């Protein structure tokens, strides 16, 4: 790795050319992004709209699904040069370990296969071809209905999970919308690489996409945001609450009132371990450890803590110990990534604080990697919901009954995303009712938290249906 690897984090439709670039550096990897003017961006949008009108709007959903599937297949093929490139550079860009990147990409992209996307379209729209033509709305057949996507969508992407932006790109294309993807400076590469993949499959589809970057929220980007938002019928933003709010405000200034905005902000998840699951302590701990290790807890589906029910075959603190052992084992299989100094310092601090509380006689037990901050499990009797500093730092808290967790979530209601549960199915179903009312959007098995099926209700929303408008034809 003596020579820097130069990559392009953008994809622009021809004949657009840009001559100035900025470079983002990630150790030996450099990612180039174009410096755009409002005029160039306007030209890009005109070009996208032309191709959307002449090509994409006329494609059937099935045809689009086939093209996406062909691209996804290349990302899933271990020896494909595109897949190899992603695996080679994403560890540098994200700081995650190569093993986590490999597993993450495979699991994520498996969800974007044709069958899965088809099922989502059918489920969300009532019929998978509702984006192609008017179809009967009800049995009387006096009214037909269809879905129409935006002509153009701007997606402001997050960078916490590698490849996450590809989902926005796919959803946009499935609604037959032209697409501007503004990449995150934390992961500015995979959306462009996916666009490059599409160019090799069907350039006309790929040229309905522009992947680019601008310094979001900063004064110099204001004119670019105005152009993009003014012309987009839909603006989506994923990121920190602060970033999403800034985009929402900017979009509100530029979009007509009828323009749509979808924001995905800060979210937290948690795990619940029922007493019956403690019978097989090792399996429960294994599943929980995987949920913690995947993406080093950087995802909104990563558990911040586990509530473990008392009264089972093992004590909650035994679960904490078992979880620690599994995290230790995973350190070989799925090592944690590298951290910058301030983050590692924070983890060290959190662990030392728990150690001093333990020394002070509080009901706290710390299990941690012998060297460094690779993983930390803090068993803590205090039942309060506590956020984790992430990067494989997790708390385990005992609870008399899993239903007692519900009132503890009240303060976190606007931020809740997923709850993983290890318990019998009847209890999971019962608990799900209460969790749904408490604000949780996805309830799944422990061990599956990081494998959401495509179309899972992120922030409680539909994957495709929230992006379309409905048109009725009354006969």
């Amino acid at each position, binding site marked *: 790795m003596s020579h820097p690897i130069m990559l392009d984090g953008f994809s622009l439709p021809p004949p657009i050319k840009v001559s100035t670039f900025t470079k983002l550096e990630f150790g030996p990897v450099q990612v180039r992004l174009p410096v755009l003017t409002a005029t160039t961006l306007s030209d890009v949008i005109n070009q996208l709209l032309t191709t959307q009108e002449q090509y994409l709007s006329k494609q059937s959903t099935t045809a689009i699904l086939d093209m996406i599937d062909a691209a996804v297949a290349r990302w899933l093929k271990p020896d494909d040069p595109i897949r190899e490139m992603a695996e080679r550079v994403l560890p540098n860009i994200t700081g995650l370990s190569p093993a986590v990147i490999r597993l993450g990409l495979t699991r994520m992209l498996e969800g974007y296969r044709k069958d899965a996307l088809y099922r989502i379209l059918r489920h969300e729209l009532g019929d998978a071809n509702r984006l192609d033509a008017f179809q009967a709305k009800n049995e009387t057949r006096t009214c037909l209905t269809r879905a129409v996507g935006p002509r153009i969508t701007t997606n402001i992407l997050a960078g916490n*999970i590698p490849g996450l932006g590809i989902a926005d790109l796919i959803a946009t294309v499935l609604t037959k919308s032209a697409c501007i993807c503004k990449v995150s400076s934390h992961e500015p590469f995979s959306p462009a690489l996916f666009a490059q993949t599409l160019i090799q499959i069907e350039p006309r589809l790929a040229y309905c996409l522009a992947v680019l970057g601008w310094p979001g929220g900063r004064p110099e980007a204001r004119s670019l945001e105005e152009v993009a938002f003014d012309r987009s019928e839909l603006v989506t933003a994923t990121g920190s609450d602060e970033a999403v709010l800034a985009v929402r405000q900017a979009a509100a200034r530029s979009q007509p009132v009828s323009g749509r905005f979808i924001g995905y902000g800060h979210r937290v998840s948690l795990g619940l371990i029922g007493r019956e699951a403690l019978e097989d302590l090792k399996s429960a701990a294994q599943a929980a450890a995987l949920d913690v290790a995947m993406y080093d807890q950087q995802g909104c589906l990563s558990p911040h803590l586990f509530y473990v029910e008392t009264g089972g075959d093992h004590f909650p603190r035994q679960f904490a110990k078992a979880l620690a052992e599994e995290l230790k084992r995973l350190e070989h299989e799925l090592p944690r990534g590298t951290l910058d100094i301030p983050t590692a310092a924070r983890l060290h601090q959190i662990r030392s604080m728990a150690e001093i509380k333990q020394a002070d006689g509080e009901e706290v037990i710390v299990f941690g990697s012998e060297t460094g901050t690779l993983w930390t499990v803090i068993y803590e009797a205090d039942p309060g919901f506590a956020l984790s500093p992430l990067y494989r730092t997790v708390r385990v808290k005992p609870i008399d009954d899993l239903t007692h967790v519900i009132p503890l979530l009240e303060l976190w209601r606007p931020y809740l995303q997923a709850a993983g549960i290890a318990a019998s199915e009847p209890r999971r179903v019962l608990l799900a009712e209460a969790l749904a009312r408490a604000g949780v959007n996805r309830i799944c098995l422990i061990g599956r938290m990081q494998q959401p099926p495509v179309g899972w209700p992120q922030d409680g929303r539909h994957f495709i249906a929230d992006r379309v408008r409905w048109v009725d034809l009354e006969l």
Partner: protein
Amino acid sequence: MKRKTDSIYDEVLDFIRHPVEGRFDPLALQVFAFQFERSPAYRRYCEAKDKTPDNVGSWREIPAVPTAAFKELDLVCDQPEKVFFTSGTTQGPTKRGRHSVPRLDLYRASVLPNFMAHLLPDLAELRMLILTGSPMLWPHSSLTHMMEIVRREYGGTDSGYFVTDAGLDLDGLSRSLREACMHNKPVMLAGVTLAFHHFLDHCEERRMTFRLPSGSRMMDTGGFKGRKINLSSSDLYHRYETVLGIPQTHIVNEYGMTEMGSQFYDNVLADHLNGLSRPRHKRVPPWVRTRVVDPETLEDQPPGSAGMLRHYDLANCGSVMALQTEDIGYTVGDGLPAGQAGFEITGRASGSEARGCSLLVEEILRAQ
């Protein structure tokens, strides 16, 4: 027992007053043994790390306690003469850190020579204009306690405090500065960065500037911790220079904390008066050692490489000597042995990098 207690404090006091090469290490080990014996929580913390007076052979091996621990428990070896509280700006009133100090004479012994060496190396007698609350107003502030020690010992006539219960006395301060200019009498300004920032805003709005007499100087401390102010220290020093007429060689930043009996000061004024020209950095007094460690390996970082700051302060003899701070910095290669070399602070431990959809600890704590 009482006798033994007194003897360790007295030994430290003697060392601070007359630092002798080679005495820090044995004294640090004695203090560690004392704190290990006297503070049950600290003892158990050390035992869990398998560090005891029997197997610790150097000050660097003494287990460091996170400064945040002062919010959770009372780490003290004897009945305190005084308890200092942190200002508690970022968390609720129940989460203020408290530092119990059994012997204030130790505190005083550490404050005076260090302040003198870095702010009054020329032994000037200056009127001190202090931008903190008075001891009456801020009875629990360690900074005020320190300023009061310094004011009584070194402050010229009419030295005093400019933060009142109504806030910073902007007019009073302006008046005092004008007097200083008129009578050509140099002054020392000392206080918290936020108060200076406020005063600079006030002056800039009114296009008011001062040409303070030569020899005037200032000490600021605290920075913008926990505030949403984006201003680099060089920008800030430039503003001090422009508005107050104090050259950057006479602007000394202090770095201290409630949890620590000793302070650190910038080298600039002492260097200037000694004809030295070195980049701005913090100096380590002889009774303190500072390590910059890699948070993963806990080994010393080479000069210039960032790490966590750990201080070992003998003036903390009555509480905990070894402190793990949340500050990030690097040591300066100044030829001194590791621990005694100067350092600079570059930031704080974070959980603060805004990444994706996972929520940040601090943000939600602030929202609570």
